[in-house]
């Protein structure tokens, strides 16, 4: 399977995990799963052109310099997932759902699906 497809599959896997977290007790992990879903969507996009990122720093720089509109949705996911993992005060599940999952992640998904693919590369999986 090509790298793009591997990252798409991982993003979808993370999306399914996110949907499986029913308890509001784990909003911090919902935020984390949402971020890793976003990360693999970004890597899926990069796989179409320049290939893998070397890490968060490289990925963040490439996003903000080449895809600033995607960065505007990705940065809040990146930033809040870090906050949610290290903050000791509880995180609101309702806000994670509305602000991160239903807003930022969804906007990022739509924006990436609208990105042009590299010449000669398929846009979608074979059905």
């Amino acid at each position, binding site marked *: 399977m090509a790298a793009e497809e591997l990252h798409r599959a991982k993003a979808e896997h993370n999306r399914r995990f996110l949907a499986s977290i029913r308890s509001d007790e784990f909003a911090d992990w919902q935020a984390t799963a949402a971020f890793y879903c976003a990360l693999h969507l970004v890597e899926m996009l990069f796989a179409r052109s320049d290939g893998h990122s070397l890490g968060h720093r490289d990925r963040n720089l490439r996003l903000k310099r080449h895809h600033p509109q995607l960065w505007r949705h990705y940065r809040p996911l990146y930033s809040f997932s870090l906050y949610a993992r290290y903050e000791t005060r509880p995180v609101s599940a309702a*806000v994670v759902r509305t602000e991160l999952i239903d807003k930022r992640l969804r906007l990022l998904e739509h924006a990436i699906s609208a990105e042009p693919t590299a010449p000669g590369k398929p846009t979608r999986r074979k059905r």
Partner: protein
Amino acid sequence: MCGKPRIQEGPIRIDFRSVQHVVVTPEDQDRFVTTSREAAMACRRAEDEKAWDEQFHRFLAHVHEWSGKHSDLVSGSYVGVSDEGLRVFLTTRGDGYRFDFDDEVSDLDLELDRLFPNCPCTVMHLPESPKEALTSFFSLADAIQTYGR
């Protein structure tokens, strides 16, 4: 055991006499130089040390000015060095995480990258907390406080 004792454990405090002129108090000078060197290494683009140093000072001044302009929401700002490079931490007033501030923070993040390409960083915001609680996110002893008390 023979290491140089730390003068203080809080963040490095600097004054901004003007946008171009960052003043480091004498007792913090050594820590500031050390932290700046770590920041330069984190940026990995510091081929010309003097030019980088000048850009880093303007970067700090820009974060200071931006924080002041957003003082209705921002109570403090810090620049730290993480495994992933420079991080700017903005503390926001109130207890809750300010999702409504995300777009403005993203604008600052993009602006810093455009103006100071040799100082790549990521900007985060957090609700204000006692300084001890901030250590979950960055080392206060190695951070530079650019705004707030």
